[in-house]
């Protein structure tokens, strides 16, 4: 695997970023849902 460093860095950031963003969204959504339940 030539230039493995760059390939891993590229895939790592992009896929990792997608995962982190999905996680952050899920957490924000859960927070919002709970806040709405409390308010209701």
């Amino acid at each position, binding site marked *: 695997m030539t230039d493995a460093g760059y390939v891993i860095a590229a*895939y790592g950031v992009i896929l990792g*970023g997608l995962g982190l*963003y999905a996680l952050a969204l*899920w957490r924000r959504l859960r927070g*919002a849902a709970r806040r709405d339940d409390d*308010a209701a």
Partner: protein
Amino acid sequence: MKTRILGVVALAAVIAATFVALVVVPPDQNQGDAQRIMYPHVASAWLAYLSFGVTALAGIGWLWKRDLRFDAVAVSGAEIGVMFTAFAIWGGMMWGRPVWGVFWQWEDPRLTTTALLLALYVGYLLLRRLTDDPERRATRAAIVGLVAAVDIPIVHFSVEWWRGLHQTATIASPDRVLNPAAPMAFVGTLLGMLAAFTLAWAYLMVRRYQLARRELEREERGRIERIVEARSNPVPSEALR
């Protein structure tokens, strides 16, 4: 529930496409394995443009129908669009360094256009954060989103020319990989990655829309509660004189 299925399918698709791109498809003769970075890079760039297209259309929807749900779509598109723009730029730099020896290729029209895209839509997101009235925020964001969307083709066009009006695509430029001469395997892998990423994009958009929708509704509920509260407590009816 349906979103969860979309999420699982998207995850599977991305894993499969990555596996194919990293292991299955052969490396490029002269670029070597670095060429594998092209797949997520191009996929991210495509999704960045798609996101900002959605934001522009949603902006038009708001200006026309004055329904805040359009604004929820617009902000989702912009936020996810900025993320994919950053991924595209990162991918472009990671790919450029090993193959062309430089992180930033000024000749590549797509890279410079994508960088401008990032600046335009970071401005869009900042502008939204600085406005608190939901309606004015939606209107202002819709217009800036529209002008940015109109500006993108001009930017791409001018950078394309800038690279040299009469110069054909040089061997070293990434375009070579996309043209029909590229081996079928590459094109197949790229399409697979595009499909997988688009599924992931769709999942994230739906989640972000749901979040934006909840936040707008909570804001709206707060505003209505404030009004009901004002209307319910007795207004002092001392005599007019």
